[in-house]
Each structure stands twice: as C-alpha cells, then as structure tokens.
C-alpha cells in the first residue's frame, strides 16, 4: 500500500499523484517514442489510428463524460475537420496552419450545434445532434465542387515547412504530438475552474446554475472544445487514410465513437484511450478468433456487429464504468491485497432520475 504524504496544496491538483505514476507515464511516453523503431509498418499504422481515435475520444469524453451532453453526431465534426484539411492541404498550406483552420472551423460548427443544447436536454439533444449529423453527411455528398461528392476525395500528403510527410513514421510522430498535446490540454482544463464547471453542469444543472455557473457559456465552450478535438482527429484521419468520402462520417461512425467512450469508461481520460484501443484492436481480435469458429459463422458479414453489440450491452449491464472502472478495481485489489473487500465499489442503488414533472 502506498500513501501520498502531501506537503503542498498544489499536490492536490498535480497531474501525476506521486513519483511512481510519473515513472510509469514517462515509461509509456518513451515506449511510444521508440515504437517506430521496433514495430512493423502495419502495427505502426494501427497505433497511429489508436492515437487519432484517442484524440477524438478525448474530445467526446470532455463533452459526454465530463459535461454530460451527449452527441450522436460527432462523426460530422470529424468530417468537417477532415474535409477542411483535405481542401487546404491540396492548396499547399503547411500542416500546422491547416490543422488550426480545421480545428477552428469544427469548433465554430460545434458552437452552432451546441445552440440547441442551451434549450434542450437529454435525449432531445441527442436527436438534435443526430439530425445535424445527417444534414452534414448530405452536404458532404452534395457539395461536389469542394468535397468530391459520393465518389470521395483523395488527400495529398501533409506538408511541414517544405518537408513532405510521406512515410508512416513521420506521420506517426505528428499524431503522437497532437495526442499528447490534446491529452495534456484536457487534463489541465479539467483541473481548472472551467473543467470543474463542466463537471458541475454534468452532475446537476440546477445546482450548477445556482452556484453562479453560466450554463449557456460552459455548454457552448464544451461543444466547441470537443468539436475542435474531433476536427483535429478528423484532419489527421484524412491524411492517414489519404482518401475521404461521406460514408466515413456517417451515423455508424458516430455510434462507434460513442461506443468507444462508453466502453472505455465515461468520465476518465484513460477511458478515452482504452476505448480507442478497443475500437482499433477489436477487428484484429475478431479476425484472429475467426480461425476457431465454424466457417458458417466466421464468414458471416454480421459477426462484427453482433460482437460489438453484445460487448456494448454486457459493458453497460455489468460494468457501467467501462474498462477504466474495471482497471481501477483490479488496481485497488492489488494495492490492498489481502484487504480488498467485495463491497468496496458497490454502487448505492440509484433510483431513476426523472425528467418528468412530479
């Protein structure tokens, strides 16, 4: 068992609780930095996708996990970022500038979409964002002069100060820098008054409002930041795939993004990356597992959907805090061994919060 002996007030909000955590995070960073030396190209590409989806997931986590506003149209923000990036990269803009523009446009769109959030809550908001997602997808498909329509649009390689990022490794480092920056930004945000306000809005809008939190401002801000991160992820995604088309940013993608944060664990930044690993790793696991199944099942097209659906249902029913919640339990068991008690994480029976008039 470890006790953190606090000698400064700042220790309460330190990013890493103690030296041991600092050691492990530094180790993770070093491992990610040297990964291109050891990993074959295929796995490096998968790792790049994990980082890209991780960025989007951090954004969605800020919105869904920390501000409590659910968006069922998040792929649309990704799409806005991706098309903006593809458009600007084709004009020869350098990467940092075009990424900033992609994020800016996504954030602006996010504020607009956040407008209904000021009036409606819960599922109404979900359906508003869902509708927005459909409209944006249709715009991508119809605005052919810019987006190339349903046939899709090829994306040129990223330019960085006269240097073309055409290999897997250089682009991996770009994604790594973006992912680390996004994570540190999110963590810093969450320990600032703004982040605390987000959490307050999530837990109870009424009490947040009565504590002087301007609901409209913080909800719009949350939508803007979340959309900007999704736009950044989308822009990197466009460069990585080198081809974008409207159906990559459809409802299915939006649901995948939600699946990612729910399975990773709502309300934790770790969960965002765990969810990204799940989303990228699961198809690999399924294709590995196919060897052990009878061919009639293994060859079926719907297998992946069934497995995703079953995992989603099982996670919500058995472990609502997701993969990160499970890890916290395992870690506590290890730390306290042999004093872990079964009731330690037992949730109090929560009664349904009703939005009805009583």
């Amino acid at each position, binding site marked *: 068992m470890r006790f953190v002996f606090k000698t400064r007030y700042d220790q309460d909000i330190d990013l890493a609780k103690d030296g041991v955590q600092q050691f492990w995070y530094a180790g993770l960073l070093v491992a990610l930095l040297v990964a291109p030396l050891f990993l074959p190209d295929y796995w490096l590409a998968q790792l790049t996708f994990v980082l890209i989806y991780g960025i989007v997931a951090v954004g969605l986590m800020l919105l869904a996990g920390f501000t409590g506003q659910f968006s069922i149209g998040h792929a649309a923000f990704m799409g806005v970022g991706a098309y903006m990036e593809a458009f600007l990269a084709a004009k020869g803009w350098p990467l940092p500038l075009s990424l900033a523009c992609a994020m800016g446009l996504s954030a602006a769109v996010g504020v607009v979409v956040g407008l209904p959030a000021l009036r409606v809550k819960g599922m109404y908001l979900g359906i508003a964002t869902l509708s927005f997602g459909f*409209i944006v997808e*249709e715009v991508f498909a119809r605005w052919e002069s810019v987006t190339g329509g349903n046939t899709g649009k090829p994306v040129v390689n990223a330019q960085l100060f006269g240097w073309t990022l055409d290999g897997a490794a250089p682009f991996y480092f770009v994604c790594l820098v973006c992912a680390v920056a996004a994570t540190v930004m999110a963590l810093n945000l969450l320990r600032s008054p703004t982040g605390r306000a987000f959490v307050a809005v999530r837990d109870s809008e009424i009490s947040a409002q009565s504590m002087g939190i301007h609901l409209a401002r913080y909800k719009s801000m949350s939508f803007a930041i979340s959309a900007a991160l999704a736009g950044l992820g989308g822009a990197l995604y466009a460069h990585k795939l080198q081809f974008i088309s409207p159906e990559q940013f459809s409802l299915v993608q939006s649901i995948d993004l939600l699946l990612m944060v729910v399975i990773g664990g709502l309300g934790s930044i770790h969960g965002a990356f765990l969810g990204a690993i799940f989303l990228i790793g699961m198809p690999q696991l399924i294709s590995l597992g196919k060897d052990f199944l009878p061919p009639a099942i293994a060859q*079926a097209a719907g297998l992946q959907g069934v497995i995703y659906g079953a995992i989603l249902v099982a996670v919500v029913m058995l472990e609502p805090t997701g993969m990160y919640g499970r890890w916290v339990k395992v870690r506590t068991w290890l730390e306290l061994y042999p004093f872990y008690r079964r009731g330690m994480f037992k949730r109090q029976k929560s009664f349904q919060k009703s939005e009805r*008039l009583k």
Partner: protein
Amino acid sequence: MLLLQIIVAGIAQGCVYGLIALGFVLIYKATETVNFAQGELMMLGAFCGLAGVTVLGLPLWAAGILAVVAMAVAGLVIERGIIRPVLGQPAFSIVMITFGLGYMARGLVTMIPGIGTDTHSLAAPYKGEVLNVGGLVLAAEQMVIIAATTLLCAGLFALFRYSRIGVAMQASSQNQLAAYYMGIPVQRLNGLVWALAAAVAAVAGVLLAPQTFVHANMGFIGLKAFPAAIVGGFSSLPGAIVGGLLIGLVEAFSGFYLPEGFKDVMPYVVVLVMLAVKPTGLFGGNARKKV
C-alpha cells in the same frame, strides 16, 4: 390531382413513420428510455412476416399476425432480460444498450446464411393494383397502409381509453410512484409496453415490406421516425402519428418540388427548427421540472 396524389403518397409513408414513432413514444412514456432499436424491431418484424409467407406458406394476413405475436414476445424478453436490470442507471447507458441491441439484431439477421444479406420482396396479393377514384390513381399498397394504421390507432385509442390495462399504463406513465402506491404492477406493465411497442413496429414492418424491400438495413428508416416523434412531442401518442404524417408530407413535397438530395434532409431540418422553436413538440405539455 397531382397535388392530391403527392399528399396520399406522403400520408402513406407518414403512417409508417408514425407507427415507428408510436413505439418510441410508448417506450419513452413508460421507461423514460429512447429505444434506438425500434427500427431494427421493425426490420425483425418484416423478416418474421417474410418467413411466415415463404417458409410456412401462410397468407399475408396470417403471416402478419404471426410476426406481431413473435415481436411482442421478443419485446417482453428484451424488457425482462436487458432493460429491467439497468433501469435506474443514467438514461444514456440505457440508450447505448438499445444501440447495442440494434447492432446485434442487424448482425444476427445478416448472419443467416443465404437469406440475411439479400434483399427480398414480400409478395402481397394487392401489390401493383391501383384504385381509380375519379381520375385519382391510388396505389393499393398505400391505401392498405393508411387503412391499417387507422384501424390500429382506433384499437390503441380504445385500449388506452377503455381497458383496465390501458388506463393503468396511462397512470404509470404519468406518475410511476403514485401508480405503484395504487397497486399497479408497474414493472409488469413496462414489459407489456415493450411488447406493445415491438408489436406496433412489427405491424409497420409488415405494412412497409410490400412497398419497399425486406433487407437487414431497412431498420434505418426508424431514424426518420425520430423527427416524427419530436415534432409530435415525445410524450404524446396522438402526437407521434400526427408528427409522422407531417414528416411524411414534408418528405413527399420536398422530394417533388425541391432539388435532389433535399428529400432525405428535410425531416431533420424540420426537427432542428422544431427544437429551436418549441422543444416540447406540437402536443407536448409545456412543463418545467420543479426542484
């Protein structure tokens, strides 16, 4: 004449949206959950009807009844096995479960070898026939949809107005706790509501099947029923039907008068406008929650 014909086509399509929206509203009123798998329930219902016609060789009406019964049982099982244990968790978790159910339903159907990945047409005896009413050419399929929806709505109205179970359902949807104190078995009623919603979805599926095709992705039409439910007000049963008709008409008119592409988007534009102007919908009560 053309105008009338567009209106009839829009109403027929709107009836299907309305029936699916009815399922959303039923479930939302009973359990405060939005069931995103409602379209998939409709798809399963259509496949049940298809199986009844092709495998068992039943006539369409018998296959329809079979589909409705099968889906009602499926609704009961889903409520008992999956939804009831998680009630009380945040609403969004339950929504994610219904997403998961939708994924599973779609995946399982496509896994049926040889059938699941194809599109099928459900042969109806009235398919392709037209009625000529004073120069107005009406497709029989559309008239059947409109007639069946009207009958179903009358039946549901009678159920909620006159039967004991229906009144109990109304009571528990207005105030669960008070209903529980009055001795209404709220949980069992919730199961019945899910069964009812699934049965209504099956009706929609069987009605829609002769007009379009039966395939694994036909459940996505359920997503157009959200605008219907919102426009009507998410907590009003007549609102769902009216919203469905409205969305169907909007779609039919924008498909005819506006450039290509607007047809699929207009329902969502309408819902965004509705949310901005009157979030509670046409028939929803204008109630604010008290602290």
